């Protein structure tokens, strides 16, 4: 699972690109937020680079919406500072912040037409009439809604309402656009399409987007960087690739996809971040950038697609493999998902891709197999880390 897989240099492309666009446009410094006795955010520090697409990802109730509402000004922090473009905005009312929000259920004004909805922000800024008309036309063109300008929101489909909400927000040229689970009301296909459109729009406009979702696939598909949150804490910030391949905690590893967790003990510390370890009773070489001492207990994390399964007759030295039996093997089209129970009881989930050279990936339930993984793609975490 190492970075070597696609990018041997070890730096993610997204990161570089983002840094070259300048300093943070939006920042949280030591922000905590309590609602009565509930602590929604614990001492959060967050930088959003100018022009980036940043996604807040985490389970329900972890504080994603709270972060957006603090930025937009609908909530005030219990402690800490919020900065927009280098200036503290704690005491600035929402209507004066150069941020705009796309609300979860769009919050379109039901008594106004699409055109009036989109024009609202500019009208509040008291722009001249012809400028408003021109910019509304442009915004509607951008989201392909010119033909529906005189409809009311109730006369639009979910996807169309979504586009109105986006047009209504971006027409104000905000420094940052905040989007709170904007696709949650859309069906799967429309969701995919809107993901694509929003990503495209963000590139086209060059506006910074802070996007909230609890869908990791969506987060990965759209973002330059992902912030994984849990119970009011930030667990990890990184590019989608880093988050997926180099999770820093069990929580992140589990949240962003299926993962196998094996127990191990370091036997020998070698050069170049290499170790020898006993993993589920079998000695394996491990590679990790983390430092471990001899005798330290570790956890070895493996994505299902990194697991390799061998029929008993394919293996000449079975003592160098984990031994187990096939529980079941499920045909999934592009992959075959295999679940294995090791002899010591640990369960392993594997996803094998069809491969022309190696067509024999069908297994019978109960069949004995040998298991290992693609060397170097393991993630090794301290056993104590949660």
């Amino acid at each position, binding site marked *: 699972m190492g970075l070597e897989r696609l990018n041997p240099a070890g730096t993610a492309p997204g990161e570089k690109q983002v840094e070259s666009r300048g300093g943070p446009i939006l920042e949280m410094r030591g922000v905590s937020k309590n609602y009565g006795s509930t602590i929604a955010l614990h001492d959060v520090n967050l930088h959003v680079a100018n022009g980036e697409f940043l996604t807040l990802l985490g389970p329900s109730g972890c504080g994603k919406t709270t972060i957006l509402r603090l930025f*937009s*000004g*609908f909530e005030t922090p219990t402690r800490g500072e919020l900065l927009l473009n280098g200036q503290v905005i704690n005491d600035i*009312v*929402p*209507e*004066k912040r150069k*941020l*705009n*929000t796309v*609300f979860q*259920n769009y*919050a*379109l*004004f*039901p*008594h*106004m037409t699409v055109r009036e909805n989109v024009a*609202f*922000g500019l009208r*509040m*800024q008291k722009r001249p009439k012809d400028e408003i008309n021109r910019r509304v036309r442009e915004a509607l063109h951008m989201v*392909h809604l010119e033909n*529906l300008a005189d409809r*009311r*929101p*109730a*006369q*639009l*489909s979910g*996807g*169309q309402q979504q586009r109105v909400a986006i047009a*209504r*927000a971006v027409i*104000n040229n905000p420094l940052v656009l905040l989007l709170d689970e904007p696709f949650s009301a859309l069906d799967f296909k429309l969701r995919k399409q809107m993901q694509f459109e929003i990503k495209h729009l963000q590139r086209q406009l060059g506006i910074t987007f802070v996007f909230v979702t609890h869908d990791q696939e969506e987060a990965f598909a759209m973002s330059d960087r992902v912030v994984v949150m849990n119970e009011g804490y930030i667990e990890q910030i990184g590019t989608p690739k880093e988050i997926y391949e180099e999770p820093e905690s069990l929580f992140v590893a589990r949240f962003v996809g299926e993962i196998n967790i094996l127990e191990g003990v370091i036997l020998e510390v070698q050069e170049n971040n290499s170790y020898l370890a006993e993993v589920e009773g079998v000695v394996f070489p491990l590679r990790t950038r983390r430092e471990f001492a001899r005798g330290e207990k570790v956890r070895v994390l493996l994505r299902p697609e990194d697991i390799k399964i061998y029929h008993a007759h394919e293996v000449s030295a079975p003592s160098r493999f984990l031994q187990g039996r096939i529980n079941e093997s499920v045909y999934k089209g592009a992959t075959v998902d295999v679940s294995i129970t090791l002899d010591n009881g640990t369960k392993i989930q594997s996803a094998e891709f069809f491969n022309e050279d190696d067509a024999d990936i069908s297994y019978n339930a109960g069949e004995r197999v040998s298991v290992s993984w693609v060397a170097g793609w393991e993630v090794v975490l301290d056993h104590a880390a949660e």
Partner: protein
Amino acid sequence: MLQNKGFRFFSITTVCIWLGVFALLPNMALFLVSFLDRTDTSFFIPVLTLDNYLRLFAPAFIRILLKSLALACVSTLTCLILGYPFAYLLARSNRRVRPWLFLLVIIPFWTNSLVRTYAIFTILQNNGVLNTLFNRLGLVEGNFSLMYTNFSVFMGLTYTLLPFMILPLYASIEKLNLRLLEAAKDLGAGPVRSFLHVTLPLTLPGIAAGSILVFLPSLSLFYVPEILGGINYRLLGSFIQYNFSKGANWPVGAAASTVLTLLLLLMAVFYRLAGRNEREGGAAALSAPGGQTAPARVERG
């Protein structure tokens, strides 16, 4: 399914018969009587005439009508101005305070309305509660009475009808999606402009409903002007009541009553116009049941 149909048929029929017997029929009878003549010995005789309506053009009746309308307008406006902030508070108050605020609105209904009207009498009369209070505060020397004036009638109407303004306002403000106000703020509208551009238009149906519920009774409540305005104080309602009782002129009373009904119809039209906004626009956002609007769901491409 069959049972359901049977129940629907039964309940709708019952309501129709009820309304037919107790509302439609009497109103039609009234309408008929308004075109009949009378004699000193019988309430009406079967002789057709337009006299009753012509008599409504007499300056005396026109004065009563105008005064009634003016007083109803002022009472309605006052109820709206007093009721809106209270209804807003009610709708936005937290769960613990709300029942108590509601109680304030509902308590008056526990007392007979005649008794409440007499209570106003004791407040406004010579040497009454207000008089005493002003004396004590040293604002006024001696006795004064506010009774038997336009003001006392206005007080009575406003006091009696305020809850009928507050309740529909509450219903429409409560229904208002708070995210819409946040959206308005987010787009740069301060408190005043979010109120004018979002809250007010979206609570218009509540304003219309409350206004009708106050305006019509202010025209037709007869005991309030009688008790607080005095024997000879006449508004439309007490004029009708007078003609059906002491005045013993049913046809003229019926004609005046028909005028009142016409006013009511006019206001119903006004209400439909105000409500159309919401039905067209807010149906989806406010989750319209049944779907009396079926918006065309056209997907692009």
